[in-house]
């Protein structure tokens, strides 16, 4: 399963959810859904904006793990 590591990168960059939402142009509510792994899919444009705002690679924001029946995309 795909696990989202957005909270880790945000903590490393010391950026708040509200600030990030302003930078990428996504509502804090949707960003929170993504951060908490409640979303079903991510657009390339969202990924692009996140990578640009956080200066990272897509692989830094998500990783693949063996399924453990817990949340995730």
């Amino acid at each position, binding site marked *: 399963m795909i696990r989202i590591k957005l909270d880790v990168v945000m903590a490393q960059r010391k950026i708040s959810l509200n600030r990030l939402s302003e930078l990428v142009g*996504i509502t804090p509510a*949707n*960003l929170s*859904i*993504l951060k908490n792994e409640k*979303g*079903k*899919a*991510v*657009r390339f444009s*969202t990924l692009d904006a996140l990578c640009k705002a956080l200066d990272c690679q897509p692989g830094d924001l998500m990783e693949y793990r063996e399924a453990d029946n817990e949340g995730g995309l």
Partner: protein
Amino acid sequence: MNVNWFYKLGSILCIILFYFVSLIGLFAIASHIGYLYFPNSAFTNSLGSFDPIYSYLVLNFEKQPELYEKTSFLQLSFLSELTTILFAAVFLWLMHKFLKTIVQEGLFTYKNVSILTKLGLTIGILGTGFTYTSELLTSKAVDELEITNASVHYSSWFFIDTLIGGILLIIIASALKTAVHAVEENKQTI
């Protein structure tokens, strides 16, 4: 162009017609029960002689034919009116719900898929039943006509139209389900 007012108006019109048709239906059913099971009651006598309603033609006999006194013909007329009223009432109720959902939640909802499928089944089953029994009734009445120098027989296949219409609507509902699925998927994409 905002066409919501059009759907809203349609929805209101459908619910008004639904109650109107239901009232007429209750009266039609009561009168047929009267003619069939209580022919000598005061209620039946107040209605006058039996005169069935034909969907596709106006037919007035100068003298009441024997056919109108036959129980089988009365039963067929009862069945025809029952399916007509049921078809009209269910159709209007579902159309009201369909238009109301479009106004409140939009077209692409799973609720509309269910309503459209029910509409298809209503047209396919009740609509076909209504057209078929109505045609049968008309055919029996036309056979009673005595025309010199010609022979007349009423035969029609109008019920095929409603059957095809019903099937088509079920197919459209199935297509709408796929579209709703895509819309919902898109909604969940961040």
